[in-house]
């Protein structure tokens, strides 16, 4: 039917109807395409818009991750926490959401009265999205602010460093700033190693980092701290410091420097002490001193090790030694011929110079280099100072250096050398991180022979029994401690002053099986009682004795009063030729 009608209609009409229909279809398709393009265009545009939006993740120029970044806990060698992170709320405001600034200021100041009203008003006005109001609040205060119900105020949980030990290990631990970045001490060292990188990558956030174990023993640290604090009342000292090192592993067990600061309040490091600036530095690593007669141990070790001086040799100490205009004399002069061990025991300057001269001044200087006395200390603390040792020794400089004047090293240099002298001559780098003997052994570096080491141990013990260390030995009976005193005159206005002295005691214990070396400094000590003296044996020596007495049982060293132990220290050469001064109780063999 339709076919017939189509045939009947003129061709042109037929063509027109087809054309118009196909045109309609084409128009519809075009509309659909247009519609689709429109829809997809809108979607694409929205995508581009979303992609170009910068999400605000920073808080006043710092990434949120950095603010909530955590630090690994620091433990002492027995696992006691020395630094931990606590999570505390910090108050921030979004000024653009605050409706009534005046009301907010008044309400806030009821809880935080220490905030300045004008400062707060300026802070809360404006169109900023984020401002800190007060960081690191206690949870109780945060609760009270929350109760106020001020719109536009909120809290962020921040990590805050807390040092439960307070001041006791301040110079070791150092401090962190408000953004939890280390600014001093081990904290800074940890950042330089790897923590900073983790924080930067945002990996340190909200996750428990593996704790860091230090070599410090909190108990020993406490004993040293309390005994050194005691010197301020007992001897009216102006400063005191001490360090104890494990001679076999090089681990630092305790390191104290007074006056100190509170690591929980890092700004206290810059407070005046006794009206003076810059007194709170770490005297053990960043203080350098002329260590006086304690340095004689170094001279003796070098001279005996060179083979040119034996314990049985005699030295003429009858007259002072002249160098041009200067004459060097003894403090407690015996003014007679002294044997090597007497020179040590009586701390004779003349005898020590002769011993150094027997060794040779250039060889003596080379020995100091071997001990690392002229190089900065290798330790994990950023606070360090280079020692001052003349590059080349003239006759007089070598002479004064032999008894510890005219060159300045840090007390830690001395402790490290003492440790090597008693540890069979093996020098090991000191560290503040935990290390066992197996790990330390490959780092050993021989500086003197084991035979020399045995002779030095004998001399140190002899000095404790008979010489200037006897007051120390009376305190630490039974612990076989030995050491050398040093009373260095301080330089005041370019001259050595005899009234202002630095008392030093460098020791090691127990000498029959050396385990620990210690250096104690007491700055400008005065007489404890009118009867006592001001030389190092009276103050630094006694402090050493009291510390040994308290820490030895903690460190597993049993007291032993057997005289056999002391006799075993006497080297064979001395035992064969018993000299009259040999009062270690050697039977005439």
């Amino acid at each position: 039917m339709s076919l017939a009608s189509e045939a009947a209609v003129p061709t042109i009409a037929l063509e027109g109807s087809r054309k118009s229909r196909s045109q309609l279809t084409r128009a519809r398709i075009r509309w659909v395409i247009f519609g689709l393009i429109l829809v997809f265009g809108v979607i694409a545009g929205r995508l581009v818009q979303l992609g170009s939006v910068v999400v605000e993740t920073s808080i006043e120029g710092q990434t949120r991750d950095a603010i909530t970044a955590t630090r690994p806990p620091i433990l002492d060698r027995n696992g006691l926490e020395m630094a931990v992170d606590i999570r505390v709320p910090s108050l921030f405001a979004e000024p653009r959401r605050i409706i009534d600034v005046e009301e907010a200021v008044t309400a806030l100041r009821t809880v935080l009265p220490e905030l300045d009203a004008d400062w707060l008003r300026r802070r809360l006005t404006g169109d900023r999205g984020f401002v800190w109001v007060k960081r690191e609040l206690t949870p109780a205060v945060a609760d009270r602010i929350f109760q106020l119900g001020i719109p536009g105020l909120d809290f962020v949980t921040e990590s805050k460093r807390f040092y439960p030990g307070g001041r006791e290990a301040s110079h070791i631990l150092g401090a962190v700033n408000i953004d939890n970045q280390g600014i001093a001490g081990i904290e800074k060292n940890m950042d330089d190693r790897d923590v900073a990188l983790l924080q930067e990558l945002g990996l340190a956030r909200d996750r428990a980092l593996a704790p860091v174990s230090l070599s410090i023993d909190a108990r020993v640290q406490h004993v040293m701290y309390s005994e050194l604090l005691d010197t301020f009342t007992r001897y009216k000292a102006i400063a005191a410091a001490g360090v104890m090192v494990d001679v076999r592993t090089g681990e630092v067990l305790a390191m104290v420097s007074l006056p100190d600061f509170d690591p929980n309040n890092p700004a206290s490091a810059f407070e005046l002490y006794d009206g003076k600036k810059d007194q709170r530095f770490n005297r053990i690593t960043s203080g350098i001193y002329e260590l006086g007669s304690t340095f004689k141990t170094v001279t003796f070790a070098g001279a005996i090790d060179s083979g040119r001086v034996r314990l049985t040799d005699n030295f003429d100490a009858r007259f002072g030694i002249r160098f041009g205009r200067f004459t060097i004399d003894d403090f407690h002069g015996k003014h007679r011929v002294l044997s090597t061990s007497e020179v040590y025991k009586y701390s004779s300057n003349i005898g020590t110079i002769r011993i150094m001269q027997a060794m040779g001044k250039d060889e003596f200087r080379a020995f100091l280099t071997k001990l690392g006395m002229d190089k900065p200390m290798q330790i994990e603390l950023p606070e360090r100072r280079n020692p001052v040792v003349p590059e080349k020794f003239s006759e007089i400089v070598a002479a004064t250096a032999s008894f510890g004047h005219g060159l300045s090293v840090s007390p830690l240099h001395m402790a490290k050398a003492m440790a090597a002298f008693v540890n069979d001559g093996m020098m090991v780098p000191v560290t503040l991180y935990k290390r066992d003997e197996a790990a330390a052994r490959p780092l050993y570096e021989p500086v003197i022979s084991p035979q020399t080491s045995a002779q030095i141990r004998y001399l140190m013990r002899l000095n404790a029994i008979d010489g200037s260390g006897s007051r120390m030995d009376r305190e630490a009976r039974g612990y076989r401690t030995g050491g050398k005193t040093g009373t260095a005159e301080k330089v005041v206005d370019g001259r050595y002053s005899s009234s202002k002295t630095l008392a030093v005691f460098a020791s090691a214990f127990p000498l029959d099986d050396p385990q620990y070396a210690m250096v104690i400094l007491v700055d400008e000590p005065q007489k404890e009682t009118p009867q006592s003296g001001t030389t190092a044996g009276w103050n630094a020596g006694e402090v050493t004795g009291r510390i040994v007495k308290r820490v030895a049982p903690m460190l597993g060293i049993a007291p032993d009063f057997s005289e056999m132990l002391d006799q075993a220290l006497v080297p064979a050469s001395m035992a064969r030729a018993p000299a009259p001064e040999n009062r270690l109780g050697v039977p005439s063999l």
Partner: protein
Amino acid sequence: MIRTLNVILVCTSIAALVGVYGLKYAVEETASTKVELERLIDKQQADLSMLKADWAYLNQPSHVAPIVVRHEAALGLKPVRPEQFGRLDNLPMRKPAPDKAALDALFEALDSGIDPIEQLIIGASQ
């Protein structure tokens, strides 16, 4: 045929609609529970960090030492002197075993009615 299909489709759509609607609400609720839990964990972690810090503080020698000093008199505490340390081998050896024969003789004597000690006293008084 088409009508039944339509009815089935409409029913499925309604069911799906109701399902999606319910799911959406369930998810919203789960999300809010999650946020709540996270906030709780956060708070508990913060509390825990405080307690840990407290514990560390209470264990510090610098905190314990003053307490010891305070109660020194009441508890009779004194620092240990070096003489007070000993070793196991310093302990005296156990006494040698008692004389068995003599004991047996004593018990036999007692059993037979003679008290040697009484005899001694009598002997002494005579």
